[in-house]
């Protein structure tokens, strides 16, 4: 029966974003008049903004010498007294003529071009103008035209899109009251006090207020057609922000040794290279190392070029004895894999980026990740 079809009764839920009407307009939450406080800090300046809904708070920070503006949001508990689930988004609107086109990352690696109401491999008839144009944003989303670009970096995976030309929106928090019938059998309505066991052991009653989330966006602008370059320049720092640990120490005794700075590298890596893995293996003196080129082809005039590194001069305090290249998962030597894998194309082994005979000097091409097992002696 039509009214019982999965299409008709599909709710928004843990796995599915679907507003209750297909082309639902965003219900905007205005700033509170005179609700902003400005602070001049040592590191820059800060604006704390209040909104007409008290469960949204935002702090905008402009840091000295940073290439981005940071927006830190605190959202929740989302009210549900009106019986409605709510999916909270922030929308940034610019004069950029994005022509229905925006770009989203694929798990932090390559960027995909997205076109609103369009799929690259089949003609689509759009029934969901909002959710049908949402995509997973793992690290960044950007829009651009010939004159300017806007990139927004997230600190966590969110849904996002560009529902209007020149705009970017990201979904920061959700609280829903119906199950989407995809197997979890409960609405996405997490509460701070937890939940009773599910039947037959309990009644699944939830306790406490809805969850409060705090996260941040890094907003960057730049010249025309530079969105990918803007995003790349900050993505790694956004993803791997410093972890702060606090240890206790006896107040009367000497404090633990304090070292102001420490680097596990001999010097700065080139700006387009990231040390993805540095792990001590079970075998004494052996280390697993992955290095990655962080720019895609054509994303930046300079930084998308190949880059050459020498493993012998990367890690301070160690003398490199030998290096062997492995496959990405580090379970097979690259050379073994290359010669034994099935030749699907009939064109022979895959071409490999250059590497020196002793496996220490090698080249990274755009988006390439190379994996090595190094034997190193402490100096």
């Amino acid at each position: 029966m039509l009214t019982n079809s999965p299409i008709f009764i599909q709710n928004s839920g843990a796995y599915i974003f679907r507003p209750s009407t297909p082309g639902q307009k965003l219900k905007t939450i205005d700033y509170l008049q005179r609700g902003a406080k400005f602070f001049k800090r040592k590191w820059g300046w800060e604006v704390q903004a209040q909104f007409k809904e008290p469960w949204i708070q935002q702090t905008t920070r402009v840091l000295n010498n940073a290439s981005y503006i940071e927006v830190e949001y605190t959202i929740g508990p989302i009210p549900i007294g009106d019986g409605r689930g709510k999916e909270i988004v922030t929308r940034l609107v610019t004069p950029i003529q994005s022509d229905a086109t925006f770009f989203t990352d694929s798990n932090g690696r390559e960027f995909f071009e997205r076109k609103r109401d369009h799929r690259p491999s089949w003609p689509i008839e759009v029934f969901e103008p909002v959710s049908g144009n949402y995509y997973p944003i793992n690290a960044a989303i950007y829009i651009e035209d010939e004159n300017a670009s806007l990139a927004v970096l997230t600190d966590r995976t969110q849904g996002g899109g560009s529902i209007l030309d020149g705009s970017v929106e990201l979904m920061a928090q959700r609280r829903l009251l119906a199950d989407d019938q995809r197997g979890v059998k409960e609405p996405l309505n997490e509460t701070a006090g937890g939940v009773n066991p599910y039947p037959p052991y309990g009644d699944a009653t939830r306790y406490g207020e809805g969850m409060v989330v705090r996260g941040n966006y890094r907003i960057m602008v730049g010249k025309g057609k530079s969105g990918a370059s803007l995003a790349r320049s900050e993505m790694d720092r956004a993803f791997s922000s410093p972890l702060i640990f606090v240890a206790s120490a006896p107040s009367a005794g000497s404090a633990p040794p304090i070292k102001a700075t420490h680097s596990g590298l001999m010097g700065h890596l080139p700006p387009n290279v990231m040390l993805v893995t540095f792990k001590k293996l079970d075998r004494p003196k052996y280390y697993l190392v992955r290095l990655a080129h962080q720019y895609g082809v054509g994303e930046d005039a300079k930084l998308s070029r190949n880059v050459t590194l020498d493993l012998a001069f990367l890690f301070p305090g160690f003398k490199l004895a030998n290096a062997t290249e492995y496959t990405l998962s580090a379970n097979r030597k690259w050379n073994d894999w290359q010669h034994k894998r099935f030749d699907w194309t009939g064109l022979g082994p895959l071409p490999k980026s250059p590497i020196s005979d002793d496996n220490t000097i090698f080249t990274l091409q755009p988006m390439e990740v190379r994996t090595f097992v190094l034997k190193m002696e402490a100096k």
Partner: protein
Amino acid sequence: MSITADNVALHVSQSWGYYTSFDATMDQSGDNTARAQQVRTLRVDFLSFH
């Protein structure tokens, strides 16, 4: 706010808002009228293949 970088000044207005949803299985009218209309269109398209 106006953000300037790389000699490009861009006016960026940022706001918050929300989309709403409710249990569609419980609703027989109201917000779902538009949804029902969409489903009828889908059904017609499906039948046209045969």
